[in-house]
């Protein structure tokens, strides 16, 4: 039996049974496409979180008072008062792996310009803050160390604040605003950064010298946070250790005592978030596996039924001299053709779907090669197995038994 003849027979059978072929393929197409698309959504959100976090400054290290609460994205260190300006100065002096460092004090309040009123957050920092956050100015200038020293009432504001308290479109630089009734002179406007991954508007800020904020706004002498950046991303873990040691000795902690502060690098934050999105991916994988399973059962059903209903045909082919192996080959080729074509169309559909999801739903997606391989393999193997298995059973019958099959 020529393989060419078998190919011809299989091809004919596929053409003759368009509807059945289509249904089988549909099972495979949907199975493959849904798995790839879902994994692409999972991968995509993971990557986008990673990208956003590194965009926030991948070398960034944050130091907060209070023990590690493992809660990411906390606004402030609460009212724990153990982080002092002295601590900041010692870290700045002793830590060798940090390139920039700033104290951070922050608090909420009203920004007022004439009759315009906007609730926002003020951050008291030093000029190095901009380098740590990797953000520039679109207009004006940053305050200087001298202005920090003298606790000048100057501020740099974000675009959201500009939009809300200068609605007429006038240049805010040089204008006076009030924050909680304390007048500040606007000397610069931050570059727009938009929302971060956690939905925080990074442009809804007022930045002023920490000395000013401490004295005039918050009336405190401790710090909410210290922010720094490591010399490089690779140095970040080592820098965290260094800072931890400095602070432990500053706080005179015994070896058996836990840290009363938290030092966190962006790297850590990334992994915390990656593990969150890992959960999402696992969930999506679970859903995808179920759809793959259902797709597989669908393929299995239709393949099984279609071979069963062709038992008579198998009987006839054997009656005119087809060997068991010929029959098996024919059905195997049919199953392979259907499964491979279906799998291929499924991949194409999934790629189309991810583009659609990205364009119109604005969800980030990233198609992983392994998802293509796995879903394709599962569907193809199910299709081929359930095309082959019933055919094998039928071809083991006596021709007349197969011919009599109803």
């Amino acid at each position: 039996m020529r393989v060419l003849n078998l190919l011809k027979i299989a091809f004919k059978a596929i053409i003759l049974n368009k509807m059945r072929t289509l249904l089988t393929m549909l099972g495979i197409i949907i199975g493959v496409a849904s798995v790839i698309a879902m994994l692409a959504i999972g991968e995509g959100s993971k990557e986008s979180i990673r990208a956003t976090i590194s965009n926030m400054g991948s070398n960034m290290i944050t130091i907060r008072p209070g023990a590690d609460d493992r809660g990411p994205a906390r606004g402030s260190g609460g009212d724990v008062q153990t982080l002092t300006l002295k601590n900041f100065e010692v870290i700045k002096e002793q830590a060798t792996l940090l390139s920039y460092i700033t104290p951070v004090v922050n608090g909420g309040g009203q920004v007022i310009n004439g009759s315009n009123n906007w609730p926002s957050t003020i951050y008291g920092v030093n000029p190095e803050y901009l380098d740590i956050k990797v953000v520039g100015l679109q207009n004006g200038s940053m305050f200087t160390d001298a202005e920090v020293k003298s606790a000048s009432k100057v501020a740099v504001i974000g675009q959201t604040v500009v939009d809300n308290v200068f609605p007429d479109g006038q240049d805010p630089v040089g204008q006076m605003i009030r924050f909680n009734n304390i007048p500040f002179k606007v000397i610069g406007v931050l570059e727009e950064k938009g929302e971060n991954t956690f939905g925080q508007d990074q442009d809804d800020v007022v930045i002023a010298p920490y000395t000013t904020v401490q004295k005039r706004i918050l009336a405190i002498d401790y710090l909410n946070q210290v922010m720094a950046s490591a010399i490089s991303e690779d140095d970040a873990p080592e820098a965290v250790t260094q800072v931890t040691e400095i602070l432990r000795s500053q706080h005179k902690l015994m070896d058996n005592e836990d840290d009363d502060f938290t030092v966190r690098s962006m790297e850590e934050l990334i992994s915390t978030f990656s593990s969150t999105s890992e959960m999402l991916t696992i969930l999506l994988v679970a859903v995808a596996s179920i759809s793959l399973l259902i797709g597989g059962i669908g393929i299995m059903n239709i393949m099984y039924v279609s071979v069963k209903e062709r038992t008579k045909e198998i009987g006839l082919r054997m009656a005119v001299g087809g060997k068991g192996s010929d029959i098996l080959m024919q059905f195997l080729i049919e199953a392979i053709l259907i499964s491979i074509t279906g799998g291929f169309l499924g991949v194409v559909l999934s790629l189309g779907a991810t583009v659609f999801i990205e364009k119109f739903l604005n969800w980030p997606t990233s198609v992983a090669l392994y998802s293509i391989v796995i879903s394709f393999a599962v569907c193809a193997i199910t299709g081929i197995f359930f095309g082959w298995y019933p055919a094998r059973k039928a071809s083991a019958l006596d021709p007349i038994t197969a011919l009599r099959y109803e």
Partner: protein
Amino acid sequence: MSKEIIKIEDLKREFVMGTETVHALRGISYTIKEGEFVTIMGSSGSGKSTMLNILGCLDQPTSGTYEIDGVKVKDLSKNELATIRNEKIGFIFQSYNLLAKTSAIENVELPLLYNSKVSTEERRKRALKALEMVGLGDRLHHTPSQLSGGQQQRVAIARSLVNNPVMILADEATGNLDTRTSYEIMSLFQDLNKQGITITFVTHEPDIAMFSNRTIVLKDGNIIKDHQNENVQSAATELAKLPKEDH
């Protein structure tokens, strides 16, 4: 004396259906020599098809032996049986068994598809010739659903001829044909028989039996009569005698 192409001995075939056993063949024996034209007769349900299926290596007897050309069929593997069916036997089913949605010519080609010795052109040529022999040269691309019952039957006959078999087993091959067409077919079979092909022909019609040189009559799974036909008629002559308007 020519050799024995079919030799069956005490052949039994039982069908077990639940608690009941149907004895379709109750132990029949006979031999058919090469070049014979045998008709098998008997009432409905007497076991004719059952017997023919066994002769065609499509079914296995419950007990007894069947030798084809001196070889015990029981000793042959499935693949060897498939090769015999493919190259030596032309089988015409009572219910035609054509592939649906498949053209007449492709149905006729089917046995040759499973014979790697036959090339594509050769296959087409032989299928065409077989269809012309049964008078369907103008229906090559009609599918079974576009053919009349008699035409479907003739496609089945063409399919049985296409592999140049040494023996033809026909199960009521003229059951659906008018007198003229069935005489034409019988004349074709007589020609083939003259070329040395052994024919076993199941029929209900006594006038068809007249064209063969031996008749075996079955009843309830037993042979009740097995006689030589002294006065074999020529189908071609009978065909000529038919009134023209009958056509």
